[in-house]
């Protein structure tokens, strides 16, 4: 076959959905599992095949467009189901199908005892279909189809255990925030269409420089609206609070949708639209600042969360901030690189957390864990790899991608952004090791009940963990810094981002580069050391601190005085700040704002209902007034 059969990649999960609907009740659990995993696995195989074919093309021609079906064509407006495979969508496609496949396999074990097993895989496959459509689309309209589809599935899966009121509530919240984002996305899309006359990427990007002056208000507005869409989907300030709440969904869902794939759709979209964003420097700057702010902000809040999944959720928000930061400074390659590595280690972290939760009979509170290292050896080992990777310890994957973002930010002259990123990196290391230590080290704080049922997870859950751990460990090697002509990943991406401004920034001297690397490793090490001191060597230090402050003399004389000073000056304030930020900012301001919008609409709705009195006289009166008003208006003219 000569053509790459792109359409079959999203079609496979869709077919599985159809089969599941039609004959799912006759298949039984085992059959359903095979069907769902098989479809995604096959999709992965097709994706690999297509990417290999793509790699076989000369660098300049690495774009495959496949028009599967013309939706409608009206004059110069055409909408078609066309798929695009270029290095960018290839990476996304591989990540989505690959990580997706592993998570599907994992879910077979994780959801084994759930009565809604079939419904779960139905939604999951539907999600894969939508996500692949989003990633492979060759125009905005089709991307929007996927965009809405993943949103819908996310909503369905957050509320999967709808008997819990909190789950239903969380689903609603996610929905509201995503709608606000969607509003931006649709509007941006329509404006682009109105001004540039096309929604197809290549045509749009080709026309854009001729239609828009660089920095013009029009393109700035359009890109900012698109970015609003991205903040909704990718949980950035100000639309991020839905993501931590989304942890009400089953853990594999958190891993797949709310860590590895769907939430990165916003980053993908910004990267995909880089020709437009490059025309609007102000928008790009906004992306960088919002990304940096979110990265730091979410990291701070992550310091004090006690629910294992919520820590990971804030961490995801923070890491997504890094990706936007990269895009904002023009380092799109670095952003996508981090997207990929993050997909590996964050999926692993969530699956590991899921394994812990599974082992502890649904316990999620870090305060009731501890000392699990020996009891869950596989989970522990893989989690440790992931934690090191996200903390940015070389040579694990997270190190390469995060370091690249930071150095690019520095190189492009955004030293403020760089500094924020560096502090964020230290905080990341801190809270991740806090999580690791509280869960796996120290004395066991398990309830008797949980202790009794403690067990390592089944192989169907462990194998994906191991595979992901391997990827987290070596996945970054495709992007070793300081190579002649750019590293492997960069060379792969070059056809897409060629000519992107930030990519061409003057390379740093090796000395500066080494200094930056050293600094970021130092930041990570500092964070790890802090966590180690606070939670392992002196457990309960933070809690005891307040009593001790009264007897400051004694504290000074104490042999660990330096630790306590550190604690008093850094850890305790940060801890309190973190708590306060979470309670005040998240729950009052952000949620308040979103609720405020909802209340406003409801208020207006209630008001409008008052007009509807049920009396014919009122209706006739409004009718007549309407006529009179229009009459006067026409008469004035």
């Amino acid at each position, binding site marked *: 076959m000569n053509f790459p059969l792109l359409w079959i990649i999203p079609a496979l999960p869709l077919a599985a959905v159809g089969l599941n609907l039609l004959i799912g009740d006759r298949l039984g659990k085992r059959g359903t599992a095979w069907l769902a995993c098989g479809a995604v696995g096959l999709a992965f195989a097709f994706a690999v095949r297509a990417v290999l074919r793509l790699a076989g093309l000369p660098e300049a021609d690495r774009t495959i467009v496949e028009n599967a079906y013309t939706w409608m064509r009206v004059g110069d407006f055409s909408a078609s189901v066309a798929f695009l495979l270029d290095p960018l969508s290839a990476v996304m496609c591989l990540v989505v199908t690959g990580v997706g496949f592993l998570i599907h396999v994992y879910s077979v074990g994780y959801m084994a005892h759930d009565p809604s097993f079939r419904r779960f895989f139905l939604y999951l496959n539907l999600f894969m279909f939508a996500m692949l459509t989003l990633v492979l689309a060759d125009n905005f309209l089709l991307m929007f189809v996927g965009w809405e589809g993943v949103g819908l599935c996310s909503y369905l899966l957050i*509320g999967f255990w709808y008997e819990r009121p909190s789950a239903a509530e969380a689903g609603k919240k996610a929905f509201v925030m995503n709608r606000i984002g969607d509003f931006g996305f649709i509007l941006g899309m329509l404006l682009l269409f109105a001004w540039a006359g096309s929604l197809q990427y290549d045509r749009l990007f080709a026309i854009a420089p001729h239609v828009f002056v660089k920095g013009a208000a029009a393109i700035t507005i359009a890109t900012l609206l698109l970015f609003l869409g991205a903040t909704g989907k990718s949980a950035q300030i100000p639309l991020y609070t839905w993501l931590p709440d989304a942890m009400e969904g089953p853990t594999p869902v958190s891993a797949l949708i709310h860590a590895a794939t769907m939430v990165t759709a916003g980053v993908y979209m910004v990267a995909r639209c880089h020709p437009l964003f490059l025309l609007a420097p102000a928008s790009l700057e906004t992306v960088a600042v919002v990304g940096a702010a979110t990265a730091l902000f979410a990291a701070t809040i992550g310091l004090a969360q006690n629910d294992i999944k919520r820590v990971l959720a804030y961490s995801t928000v923070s890491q997504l901030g890094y990706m936007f930061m990269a895009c904002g400074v023009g380092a799109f390659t670095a952003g996508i690189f981090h997207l990929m590595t993050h997909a590996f280690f964050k999926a692993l972290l969530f699956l590991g957390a899921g394994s812990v939760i599974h082992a502890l009979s649904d316990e999620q509170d870090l305060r009731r864990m501890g000392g699990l290292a020996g009891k869950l050896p596989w989970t522990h080992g893989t989690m440790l790899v992931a934690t090191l990777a996200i903390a940015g310890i070389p040579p694990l994957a997270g190190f390469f991608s995060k370091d690249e973002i930071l150095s690019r930010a520095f190189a492009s002259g955004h030293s403020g952004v760089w500094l924020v990123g560096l502090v964020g990196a230290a905080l990341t290391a801190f809270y991740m090791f806090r999580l690791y230590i509280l869960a796996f080290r120290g004395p066991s704080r398990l309830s008797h009940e949980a202790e009794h049922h403690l067990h390592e997870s089944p192989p169907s859950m462990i194998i994906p963990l191991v595979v992901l751990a391997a990827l987290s460990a070596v996945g970054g090697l495709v992007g070793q810094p300081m190579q002649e002509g750019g590293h492997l990943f960069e060379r792969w991406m070059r056809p897409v981002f060629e000519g992107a401004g930030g990519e061409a920034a003057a390379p740093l001297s090796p000395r500066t580069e080494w200094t930056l690397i050293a600094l970021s490793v130092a930041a990570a090490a500092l964070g790890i050391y802090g966590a180690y001191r606070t939670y392992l060597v002196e457990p309960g230090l933070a809690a005891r601190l307040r009593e001790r402050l009264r007897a400051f003399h004694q504290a000074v004389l104490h042999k660990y005085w330096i630790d306590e000073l550190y604690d008093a000056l850094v850890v305790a304030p940060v801890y309190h700040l973190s708590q306060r930020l979470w309670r005040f900012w998240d729950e009052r301001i952000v949620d308040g704002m979103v609720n405020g919008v909802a209340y406003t609409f409801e208020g207006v709705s209630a008001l409008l209902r008052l007009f*509807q009195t049920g009396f014919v006289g009122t209706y006739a009166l409004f009718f007549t007034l309407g006529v009179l008003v229009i009459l006067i208006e026409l008469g004035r003219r």
Partner: protein
Amino acid sequence: MSGVPFLLPVDWWALGAVIALSGGAMALLLLEFLPHGPESNRAALVSLVTLLAAGASVFVVRDSRRALFDGMFVHDGITVFFTFLFCAIGILSVLLSWDYVKRTRINRTEYYALLLSSTLGMVIMAGSNDLITVFLGLELMSLALYVLVGFRRSHLESNEASLKYFLLGAFASGFLLYGIALLYGATGTTNLQKMTAVMSDSPMLENPLFVVGALLLVVGLGFKVSAVPFHMWTPDAYEGAPTSVTAFMSAGAKAAGFAALVRVGLSTLGAVRTDWVPVLSAIAILTMTVGNVTALLQNNVKRMLAYSSIAHAGYVLVAIVAGGRDGASAALFYLAVYSLMNLGAFGILTLLGRGTEERVLVSDLAGLGFRHPGLGIAMTVFMLALGGIPPTAGFMAKVYVFGVALKAGLVPLVIIGVLNSVVSVFYYLRITVAMYMEEPQAEPTHVSWAVPGALAVLAAVALTLWWGVQAHALLDQAQRSVLGGM
């Protein structure tokens, strides 16, 4: 006229729908007196055959163009498109009514006779090229609907709904008639073609008779399509009417009103478009916003969908404001899609409940998605389509309408439209959430399954999805219809 002793053969076919529908209605009136029981299917069958015959006869001459009766009635693309649409709406409504009227004990021959008369009125409205015929068609449609709305005579709500609809409808007719009178006075004719010709000779913008007349005409038609602020009858009438009638009128009456507006917009008003854009834009904005926002807090699904239908009228108005052939074809496209998904949604409501009880509160839908998966999926499809979420036809319809409006430079209108469609998803999804994520509080709602009703819903689902992925087929049709207009 003596030169045309009889109509030409093609003219007979072109009038086929009108002839068939009048014949069917009259036959039903007489059939009432042949013996039949309360469970008789005869009337429904006769109406079905009539509607099929009407559609088929138009199909025969779908490509011919004719002016009939001295130019009062035209047979052109728009007429053909709408006649098909009205026959389809009629057929689906008959199928939905089939068992609904039996269980609510209103299975009378007159019900179907009125349904056919009303459809006849719609067809006449769509084909009329003269304000006299517009008025007659509109009244024929409306008078039958007033009675249909109040068809559950012993039911307080039904009667109240029909009273309100009737009084306000007659009130609006008064405005419409006076508007036509003024237009006649200003231009000396009631024929739309001649009127346009007169206007091109002497601009009428300064003539107060013309301006006021045109305004009153728009108001009268605006009432039928429930444009704000002439919409207030809509929720009450829709809620009180028998659900099958609500389904029929929400699709048919609205489409008929817009058919007339499209025709007027393409000819008479089209010539003075620029002066109307601000006014019509304001009406469109109000219509979308008031409809959607008021729907947010409704607990009765019928009432919620009534407000939603107001909002959809707003979207169509956006297409009308955009004007021209593009605007007209967008309006046609949107109306066809809208009719389908709305009929489907109301159609599902006709299946709910046992005997004469009505189970149309949002809470009545709780858990329905699991107890009746087919029904749940169908309702979800309609809600997604109404909310404009891909890949349903509702999405393509919105995209096209907004695209056309953008091309016409109506950016603020589009922004408000998009914002509105975002808001609307909240209440549409509320229904889905109730079906899939809530447990019934009281006795679960009984579903009165019936083959014809289920068939109608199935057809609506299939077409909603089909036109979602195969949008260009319908769109081509809409465009060719407008191009073939006279």
